[in-house]
């Protein structure tokens, strides 16, 4: 029994570290004046509750495609919601004209390119693809 518990905890630690290694970065254009954005603000922007960056400029969030690893991690860690909870959340807003979900904009590379070219766009990518074309404002 003890051995079983031990192997379980080893497994959990292994799992936790493998999750931790897939670090996600929230990115904006290098032309965007905001240096750091806290998780609460990122969450508000992606849930349509805030429409501007902390400096007051317009914020346009973009999502990765459904099922992308970065999106699953972002949804559960930053937004704290499952895919179906989010769909239900957005259907409440869409059908009252109160908001539209962030556009699905492809994978890590596509999101990075869109973000690099427009100072209003905010996205998230696996930290491994981050380069000098974008600026990291939040990591988890």
């Amino acid at each position, binding site marked *: 029994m003890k051995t079983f518990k031990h192997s379980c905890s080893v497994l959990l630690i292994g799992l936790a570290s493998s999750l931790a290694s897939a670090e996600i970065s929230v990115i904006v254009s290098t032309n965007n004046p905001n240096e750091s954005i806290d998780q609460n603000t990122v969450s508000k922007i992606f849930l349509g509750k805030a429409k*501007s960056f902390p400096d007051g400029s317009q914020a346009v969030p973009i999502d990765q495609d459904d099922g992308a690893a970065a999106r699953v991690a972002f949804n559960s860690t930053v937004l704290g919601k499952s*895919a179906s*909870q989010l*769909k*239900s959340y957005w259907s409440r807003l869409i059908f*009252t*004209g109160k908001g539209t979900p962030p*556009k699905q904009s492809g994978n890590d590379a596509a999101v990075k390119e869109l973000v690099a070219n427009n100072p209003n766009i905010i996205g998230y990518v696996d930290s491994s693809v981050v380069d000098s074309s974008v600026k990291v404002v939040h990591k988890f």
Partner: protein
Amino acid sequence: MKNIAKNLLLASIGIASSSQANDLNINGFLSVGASMLDNDKVEISGYDTNGGFKQDTILGLQLSKQVNDSTTVTGQLVSRGSEDYNTESAWAYINFAANDDLDLRMGRLRVPFYYYSDFLEVGFAYDWIRPPAEVYSVPFSSVDGVDATYRFSIGNWDNSAQAYYGRYTPEGAGVDLRNFTGLALSGQTGDFSLRASYHRLEIISDGTGSFGAVNQGAAALIGTTGSALNTGLLAAGYSNQDIAGAVDDFTLTGQEIGFYGIAAGYDNGDYSAIAEYTQSFGDAPFIPIVNTYLVKAAKRFSDITAHLTFTSSETELDSGINETIQKSLMLEDKQSSIILGARYDYDSSSALKFEIQQLTEDMRSGAGEIDETGMLYSVAIDLVF
């Protein structure tokens, strides 16, 4: 050459962002349901013991377009099986965003009576197959007018205040609902949400349609010498003057109706709960005070959500002669339900739902007491696209 390339790049970014602003968004929802009632003495409008496929079937199509930076137009067409698939505009409005926190709208809007009012028909957005009829009982859901929604934060609370003013003329009822106005406040922090709303309207009947008929019928029953009700009232010791006063009281046109609702919700992802209470009241004793509530708890097991709801609706009568008349007009009514259901999210935009509802009706009238219990079994598929 480099400059040309740069200009082209800038131009293409410009085009990309303007085409984004000019996107026509098309969204839709579809619910397809089947249901069966096991006791034909229980009356739930549209449901019967032979089973049906129409009552919970609803198709909605929404078009919205951003006209410029601050203006959006939105139209939502809804076709309901319960109304023989007649298509109606549930929403049709222009939204002007005065700034990030203030939206002004004009056109056909949803009346924010209830917690779930805004997305009343989007089954995918909630766990039930349909919101409980005990609470969700106002027979219309739109108003033609203007509203303003202001969003603000206090500490950790994200709040909104919505005020509207308008008018609504239901088809064929011979009634005009004027000076229709209200205020809805809602707040959300973390897993908690609160909501309160108040509404009032004035009823103007032109004497025609179903509403006019009921109105005149009641006055005739009460005031006509020799009618059973008139004779009964005289026998109970009321004077002709009392009765004339009651006829005036029971005249609906020009009377005000008020409504308020409060609700609290909790959702931590695994467990969720909501409680909602409403009261409607009228100047006219014809519309007695109705108190309704629902309490619902749900537990999410990955893709499956199990939920249990208690809900009730009960009239509160006046006293004296008006109470006697209200009773004889069968305005006393009590109804409650227990709803047990499950929702299965089989992908991120469709859900399969099952529900068993035990409905108890307790209506007291001059003819005695009607006390019936029935079971309503329902299944539905909800999609959003």
